Each structure stands twice: as C-alpha cells, then as structure tokens.
C-alpha cells in the first residue's frame, strides 16, 4: 500500500488529524495526534502495522523530529514512516509506549541523545549517559571539540614525544591558549529539510 493511500485512509478514519507527505513519509502536524495515528495504524484491519521497528530523534536546527518506522508482521508489509516535530526549546512529544512496548528503550535513547521528552513514558531517564550528564550530545549545536586543530596541551604532548609541530600549528595553539578557548568544531548552518 502506498503512503498516499494510507494517508487518505487515516484521514478518513480520524477526522481532524492533519497529515503531510514529507519524503515518502507522513508528518503528523499536530504532535498530540501521534498516539491516535499510531493506534489507527496498528488496529485498522487494512493496515495492521503492529511492529514498531525503529524510533529515533533527529535535529534539523530549527526543530527536533522523532521518526518512527512501522512494519506489519501480520501482513508482512511495510513500511510506513511517521514523523512528529517539536520545538527545540521545550521538546515534548507524546510517548508511544502505551501502544508499542518496543518504543520503551528507543524513546529513552532519543531522550538521552536529543532531549526530547516523551510524555506518558513509564520511565523517562537517560539510558546510555550517566544521570548527571548535562547537554544533549546528538544535537547539532552540541559543542564538539575540533579534532583537527591542535591545542596547547596537544602540542606539548607531541613535543614531549619527539614530534616536531609546524610553526603554524604552534601559533594557532598559542592563540587558543591565550584566549582561553578550546578548539571547537564548526556547527552546521543549513539543514537538509526545508
């Protein structure tokens, strides 16, 4: 079944739910509708998308997104991709755990890495990082060190081991040390999504 047909089917079954086709996937425009859409996908006899394969977050600079890949084990059909968007400042999305148990750890992972809070999740904690960790490491604005630039400590380390460091690198490292900054990787400016 094509994504357009599924879209029409859901819109018929759930009046008031706004869906948008984005790259062969369905964007649920009002995120609060997500559980209803998922339930419809799971229980509609024509669809029976009973298997939630993957849940993941994504950062598109102006908003955060949660992407769901659904398949049907009963009909051996698929896939349908659902998306829901939320703002970066206070990212909140409804949890799908009451409908799909399989979302439990994956939503925790998305929370851990992107900071998307899934409401109604039974156990919303960090899963990989320790509890006191600050920041959301997979967001594009997370400060990452630039592994290509040498810092003063690196220069010192190298020279102690007999590696000659070029003057340009040394000057750069010295400048960083003086300003008290760290070598920070460039943050992306444009996102692939319009």
């Amino acid at each position, binding site marked *: 079944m094509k994504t357009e047909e599924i879209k029409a089917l859901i819109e018929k079954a759930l009046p008031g739910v706004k869906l948008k086709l984005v790259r062969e996937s369905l964007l649920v425009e009002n995120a609060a509708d997500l559980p209803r859409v998922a339930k419809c996908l799971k229980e509609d006899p024509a669809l029976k998308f009973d298997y939630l394969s993957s849940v993941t977050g994504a950062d598109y600079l102006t908003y955060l997104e949660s992407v769901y890949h659904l398949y049907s084990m009963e009909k051996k059909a698929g896939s349908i991709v659902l998306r829901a968007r939320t703002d970066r400042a206070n990212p909140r999305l409804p949890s799908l755990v009451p409908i799909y148990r399989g979302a439990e750890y994956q939503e925790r992972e998305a929370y851990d890495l992107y900071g998307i809070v899934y409401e109604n999740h039974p156990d919303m904690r960090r899963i990989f990082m320790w509890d006191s960790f600050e920041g959301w490491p997979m967001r594009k604005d997370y400060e990452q060190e630039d592994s290509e630039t040498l810092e003063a*400590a690196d220069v010192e380390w190298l020279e102690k081991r007999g590696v000659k460091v070029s003057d340009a690198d040394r000057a750069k490292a010295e400048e960083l040390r003086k300003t008290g900054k760290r070598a920070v990787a460039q943050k992306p400016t444009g996102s692939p999504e319009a």
Partner: protein
Amino acid sequence: MFYGYGILQGMWVTLKQFFASYFKKRGQDGALFTVEYPEQRLPEKERFRNFPFLIYDKEPENLRCVACDICAKECPPKCIYIVREFDKDGKPLKRPAIFDIDFTVCMNCGICEEACPFEAIYMDHEFEIASAERNDDLLYHKDDLLKSNAYFHKIRPNDATAVDAKLKEAEDKKKAAEAAAKAKAEAAAKAPPPPPPAAPGTTPPPQPPKPAV
C-alpha cells in the same frame, strides 16, 4: 528411553573427544586444534592486515609518500599526522617531514591503504609490537614506519607485483606524455611552455590531526 539417557549420550560425546584428542592427527575431527603460539604459527594470509607502513623504493630517501594528507583525512580514528617538508626558500617539497602514526589509536581498517593515490602506504603483517610504554613506544615515527618495496614483495607478493606493474605503467605514460610534450614544444618553437605535469601537491595544505592525549 529412560530418564538420564540424554546425559549418558552427552557423556559419550565428551569421552570420544577425550580419546580423539590423544589419538587423532591434527586436522581430523576431534583432534587438538591449539596452535602453540610462539613456537607454532598459523600461515600468514596475504591479505592479513595489521598496522600501516610506508613503502620506499630502493633507498629510504626515495619514499613514495608525497605528503598529500589524503590518508590523514580519510583515517576514521584520525591516527595519522603529516607535516610536509619545505626547502630553504619555503617552497613545499613532495615528501613528508613528519609522518607519525599512533598505533594505540589505529584500528587496522585499511582505509589509508585504499585511499592512497600513490601506493605509498600499505598494511603490514607485523603484529608483535607489544611494548611496556603505551604512549611513547606505540607512537611510530617516519623512520620506524619506512619499509622497502622488497619487504612488501616478501609479505604480499601478489599485491606488490600488481602495484609495481601499475606504477610502471603510470611512469611510462608520464614519460611518453613528457616526450610528446617536448616534441610538441620543439615543433612549435615560440609557443608558451607546456604546463608542468599535474602535481599531486595541489591538494589543500595539510591540517594535522590531533593525537589522542
């Protein structure tokens, strides 16, 4: 069958293996398969890859590396650090002044070997490089990395022959092109001089990676 028969069957299997390990010859079913390492060794496979090394032709000064920095850029864990050599006038030379590989970081993936356009870096078979000092002894400098083409022929005969053939072909082509260009230049006496052969050094200036501290 009675209760416990499955257990007896299983015990029969282990007993058979017990005797087989004494009486069967290596290679047969149930024979010993331990290779007693320092004395016995498995045959080396030609494609076996461990850490990279740099190839030179004939003399160590003649290394193939032109310090283009491609391997350092492509290296997934960024364990290669290259600084190009400059002559007295500050003109860049086609050879590295520094070529360091941090073997504590290297993950033996072989991407440097694949990406190198000059057939200069290849994966070695040498794996007994354990040392007591983690940082100092496993940071390999240019001189430690240099190995001759003959060595390459020894460990990987097929690959080395193919590479030699490829290089020779490229050189012949270059010579032919040069000769043709020369002839052309002589023919057109007052034409502008031919452009120099495309130098590999036209890649952007190298940016050294940061070794793990």
